[in-house]
């Protein structure tokens, strides 16, 4: 029902681990380089996209969220992120429409 060991799901988790590790390092390098380019408003978008990709890699593979056959853990993550987005979005609903000094 739940994951016993990762090896049940993939024959050689080490390959996955090192691949993810490499991808994370690459992402770090990319985000560092991308910041040096002038992309206007897209600088933040690129940085956040890379960061989110990295965070997803860590969560899915290192924290085994991908193999958690139970949907409950995913639900916990999604619920949390939902309320985090609510906090920011509804605060911004005020700030973005307010002419404030």
């Amino acid at each position, binding site marked *: 029902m739940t994951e016993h060991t990762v090896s049940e799901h993939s024959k050689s988790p080490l390959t996955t681990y090192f691949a993810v590790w490499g991808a994370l390092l690459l992402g770090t390098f990319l985000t560092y380089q991308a910041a040096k380019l002038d992309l206007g408003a897209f600088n933040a978008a690129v940085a956040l996209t890379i960061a989110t990709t990295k965070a997803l890699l860590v969560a899915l593979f290192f924290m085994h969220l991908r193999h958690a056959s139970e949907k*409950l853990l995913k639900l916990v993550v999604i*619920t*949390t992120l939902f*309320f985090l987005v*609510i*906090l920011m979005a*509804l*605060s911004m*609903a*005020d*700030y973005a*429409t*307010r*002419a*404030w000094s």
Partner: protein
Amino acid sequence: MATENPQPERVNYLNKEYGIGSWLLTTDHKRIALLYLISITFFFFIGGFFALLIRLELLTPAGDLVQADTYNKLFTMHGQVMVFFFLIPSIPAVLGNFLVPMMVGAKDLAFPRINLLSWYIYVIGGVLMLHCMATGGVDTGWTFYTPFSTAFSNTKVIEAGLAIFVAGFSSILTGLNFVVTIHRMRAPGMTWTRLPLFIWAHYATSIIQILGTPVIAITLVLVVAERALHLGIFDPKLGGDPLLFQHLFWFYSHPAVYIMILPSMGVVTEILACFARKRIFGYSFVALSSIAIAVFGFLVWAHHMFVAGISVYAALVFSILSYAVAVPSAVKVFNWTATLYKGSIHYDAPMLYAFGFLGLFTIGGLTGLFLAALGVNMHVHDTYFVIAHFHYIMVGGAVMGYLGGMHFWWPKISGKLYPEGWARLAALIVFIGFNLTFFPQFILGYVGMPRRYYHYPPEFQVLNVLSTAGATILGLGYLLPMIYFLWSMRYGKPAPDNPWNAAGLEWKTASPPPTFNFDQEPVVTWEAYNYDELDAPHREEVPVAG
């Protein structure tokens, strides 16, 4: 009543071990519940004492009983103590702690040691709060509004902030324990749709505790850091925005109201079903409305800020969302009322409290409509109308539910019966005292008396006198249960296992329960609130009569 107590001297959680150590190092959720009961009762009476002083000061228009600064500290610490050290832990940490494992058929909460830890964290927070009071107190209002709290108040803001910061983690851990217990520890056959609605209410409460409390924690960290290190995050003089504090503060503190009221709704649901001998009308709607309240409760916080200087558009958004959260509350009230229909209604003390809850929560909820209406809000905001409204919810609602639950489960908790006559009298006194205290405040508010006023124009006096008179009665009403509960521990009649012939796993074990709750692991084969089956033996008598 159905079950006789076969062996009065059975080993139970109370008499299994003796000595201070067996209590302070216990991991038994029932003992921890009692530890919480003692500590929150202590803080309830501290907070109540402050309230009484506030009401006495407001007896006359002039400021004559205490100094202005003292008065400001009184209402601040009344709020902080009552909100963070009484109301938020009240039902979850006492009744929830005691009942959640039993109701789902578990031996204990999922993390018993974390449960004990949460009580110690609460105590540390409480001691910090007491230390703050003893060394001068704090005068910011329980809301800590910046920049007053960070740059102007010269009282113990940091101490109070830390106390509440610490106490918050006890609340988080309780909620975490509940969610894991409800997911992982249910007895065989205890499906989600067989759970008592008390459990659903606590599940919803836990979501708020887990996801809301950390935000107030970090906000208090910012306030403390800003005050100690003169940062400028909330200080307009240094480029910050004081409204950001209000956003972050109310992001927790509005849902916190639901931490107080949702468990109380759960209690009342249990009581109504038991004393009407009925299944709850619309079980799934009542269950889902709890979750809906928890979720929508997070979307409405800025209705505390309509006149604070937020944008008009944001005010519109938050106003409409506030009405969204009113719908599930209304659904609950209608379902409770419908549950009474064709019931077989008993008038025992817990039921009287439940009736009281129903009436007071209805008024409290409906006056919430006034406050969510932008046009009226700009008149009644920060007046006594608000005070009356949230006391109807938090005292009329939450405390009525808490007292009802204490009476309902007292035989299970203590193994003794409380004196029914006194209990009914107390319920009546509390109900009358409460209304006399807070109803005049609605009028006061609409007439225009602002909150947190130490002296006031003389035309407000008559209403204030009424309110103070009510508070005296209310105080008496709260003292009574404490006296007869204590009395019953020694002199009360031994309680049978199921004195109310109630449904629910907690009544299927001994009173008081053994340490691991059940002598045999329960297997659930029935639906929740199967009162028709419980009352079936009585039905067999009917053919004789007719």
